[in-house]
């Protein structure tokens, strides 16, 4: 097992280099460049000042030299400095965005699992019942409604009309003057709506997945055997059927690892949340190459790591795979 993990980890290195090379080339093929935002259609920018800015950012070098420099820095885990005027370190920019994005994603993912698994199991067990039909309609409604639209409606209701919840942002203006508990409450108050909405939109996938897994398992012979043994229905469902139905969920969990740090641009824009989605979007729009590369590399690494974790977790949970 350990050898297997070690081999897989080693394999990720060439994969990461390959992914970064492709990203790097794609990024440079896109029209425009980092200096465009300040100099395009700017009467004060001359050919000379453009050349100077290009040299300043090292963009006058051949592409392979630029990539080589980047790779060399990456080898020491140095993400470089952002091309945006503040010139801050990319690592620092990413680091300050991670907590909020991670919090929202973990909470909403927890919410999804907490709600979707019971709903899926119950719908499968009582297939065709009123509950099954209502929950199906409900989760698909959540899936189909554009989140930004629902978000605006919720803001109008809870923020403007009722005044119960803050509309946007992640903290009140007097946040700094609050105590530790007050800060936590303030943050929770601000995150309630975004987390609920993010969760609502994600319910459909998970609950339908759980329902179909469960339906498949419940038809198996060993479940019939368990019932024939005279086990109570609860034991049959939870001990025998659900355990097996949960196996594929591990794969989903593993594949969600990169999503934990990926924020949704639309969502963050609507709620004015300074998260990873906005950071990446702004990076792309201003062609902030080091920032784009930094976020893509982290994303690629997490994806590979998630795949590995899923495989390992699966092997641990399912003896058939472990032996194979």
């Amino acid at each position: 097992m350990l050898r297997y993990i070690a081999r897989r980890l080693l394999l990720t290195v060439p994969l990461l280099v390959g992914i970064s090379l492709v990203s790097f080339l794609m990024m440079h093929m896109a029209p425009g460049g980092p200096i465009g935002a300040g100099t395009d259609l700017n009467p004060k920018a001359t050919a000379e000042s453009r050349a100077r800015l290009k040299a300043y950012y090292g963009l006058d070098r051949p592409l392979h030299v630029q990539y080589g420099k980047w790779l060399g820095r990456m080898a020491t885990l140095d993400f470089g400095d952002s091309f945006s005027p503040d010139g801050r370190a990319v690592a620092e920019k990413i680091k300050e965005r991670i907590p909020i994005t991670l919090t929202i994603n973990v909470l909403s993912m927890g919410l999804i699992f907490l709600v979707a698994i019971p709903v899926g199991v119950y719908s499968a067990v009582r297939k065709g019942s009123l509950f099954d039909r209502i929950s199906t309609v409900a989760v698909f409604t959540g899936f189909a409604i554009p989140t930004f639209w629902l978000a605006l409606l919720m803001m109008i209701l809870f923020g403007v009309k009722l005044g119960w919840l803050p509309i946007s942002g992640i903290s009140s203006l007097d946040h700094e003057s609050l105590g530790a508990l007050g800060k936590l409450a303030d943050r929770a108050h601000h995150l309630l709506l975004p987390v609920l909405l993010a969760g609502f939109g994600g319910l459909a996938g998970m609950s339908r997945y759980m329902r179909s897994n469960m339906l498949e398992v419940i038809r198996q012979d060993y479940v019939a055997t368990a019932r024939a043994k005279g086990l109570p229905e609860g034991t049959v469902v939870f001990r025998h059927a659900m355990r097996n139905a949960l196996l594929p969920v591990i794969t989903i969990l593993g594949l969600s690892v990169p999503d934990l740090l990926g924020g949704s641009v639309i969502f963050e824009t609507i709620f004015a949340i300074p998260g990873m989605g906005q950071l990446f979007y702004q990076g792309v729009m201003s062609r902030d190459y080091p920032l784009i590369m930094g976020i893509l590399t982290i994303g690629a690494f997490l994806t590979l790591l998630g795949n590995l974790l899923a495989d390992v977790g699966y092997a641990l949970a399912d003896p058939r795979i472990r032996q194979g």
Partner: protein
Amino acid sequence: MRESPRRAVLPSIALFLLLASCGGGKPESAGKETAVSDVPAHGDAIVEGSIGDVSGFLTAVTTDASSHEAAGYVFNGLVRYDKNLKLEGDLAESWEVSPDGKRITFHLRKGVKWHDGAPFTSDDVMFTYRRMIDPRTPTAYGEDFKQVQRAAAPDPHTFVVEYARPFAPALASWGMHVLPKHLLSTYPDISKSPLNKKPVGTGPYRFVEWKTGEKVVFDVSPDYFEGKPYIARVISRVIPDQATMFLELKSGGVDIMALTPPQYVRQTETAEFKKSFNKYKYTASGYTYLGFRLSHPFFRDKRVRQAIAHAADKKALIDGVLLGLGQEATGPYKPGTWAFNPGVRKYPHDPGRAKALLAEAGWKEKDGVLVKDGQPFEFTVLTNAGNDARAKTAAILQQNLAEVGIRMKIRTVEWAAFINEFIDKRKFDAVILGWNITPDPDQFDIWHSSKTGPKELNHVGFANPEVDRLLDEGRSTFDLEKRKNAYFRIQEILAEEQPYVFLYVPEALPVVHHRFRGIVPAPAGITYNFVKWYVPAALQKHRVQP
């Protein structure tokens, strides 16, 4: 303050905003409801909604409007634009231009202190100038300063610059924020200095904190040289979505923002809203145009361009795109400013006249489409994606032109691709774009025939010897009357030639919570006298501990 042309020339609008953002003006009380005692009082905070985050505080190296607006609270230039968009002294008390127009002498204010207590002197101005021309400074604004032949600081309160030729726009370039030498001299690259994140300036407010992506906070500077501003704290919140920002405004989370025309006309007319907010309206500094590639065989003929100007229904454009909140553009200057010529040839909506002009140019109608030499009159107009106003403008123009037998196709392209692949390579038939109108009327870069190279701004390829001469004349004298004559004549020629069909100038639509008093709209907008805004003691909402 507006979304549409902001992308077009960020720096110029940004520079304009920074110059106009804080200024003099008389303390007048202009509150609508004067039930409470309307006396200026210190205190309270104002919360601004901002679409974008700050990217740095040193305006020499930033180019976006949000950064320039924020920096305007902390820094000053030597000069700035007053409420009528005329230059006035800022850190310079006054200035003289030598009779030959080549030398400008600035007399600096005495007793001004940086926020850390160090005195402001001509050394700081000299330092700023040197950094603007330093190749290690990543600035897009170095050009104006490179024109300086000699700069001198003969005493702590005098700064002298000499140019090779008289250059009128040079004066406005000294609106560039002056940097503190004592804090920056050890940083060869000012963009990497801590000051770019935690600025120390001479302005009405001092920097308190910047939470990236969330907010920037400034507190009043008690010893500001124009007197202590009334509002004690300024909080600029980043809210990237217009609709969210509007909800924040209604629920009290934001005090001041720019409205969109639909918000202004349809969503803010309730009695309840009017009780809590004051809406303002003034002519924005920008215009939208339809520009032709003049080397295109269809558009080479002046009569064709004039015909399209007659075919375009500007009234319908203003009603449809701006809900009536704008005015017809007749040239590249802002109506009501000194350079604006109100007497140029106009092109009222007249499809009949348009058809006649096109027939004169040899276009004959066949099955509803104009044809010449076997070629149908068909072209594509390009505009940048994500600009709703321009997309609507294109759709209305398409209909207008169909009425006279011209088939116009519309294509929208992402901004960077639009500029790099189409505009810069001159691969377009026609474009819908906008320019910001800078307070100085020099538009050499847009209209001079020498400015048609790649990346240069005369992308339509306009070439007119008289305009070339007048552009030179206008920028090489400080005599306002001479300049005015030159720019008036340029507008006449542009109106006759129609290299662009000038479409409309929108209105800027700011809204401010009603507790703020002392707001006096002027051609420069409303924020020019921000330091004189106040909240009567009884209405103050936030308690600000200094």
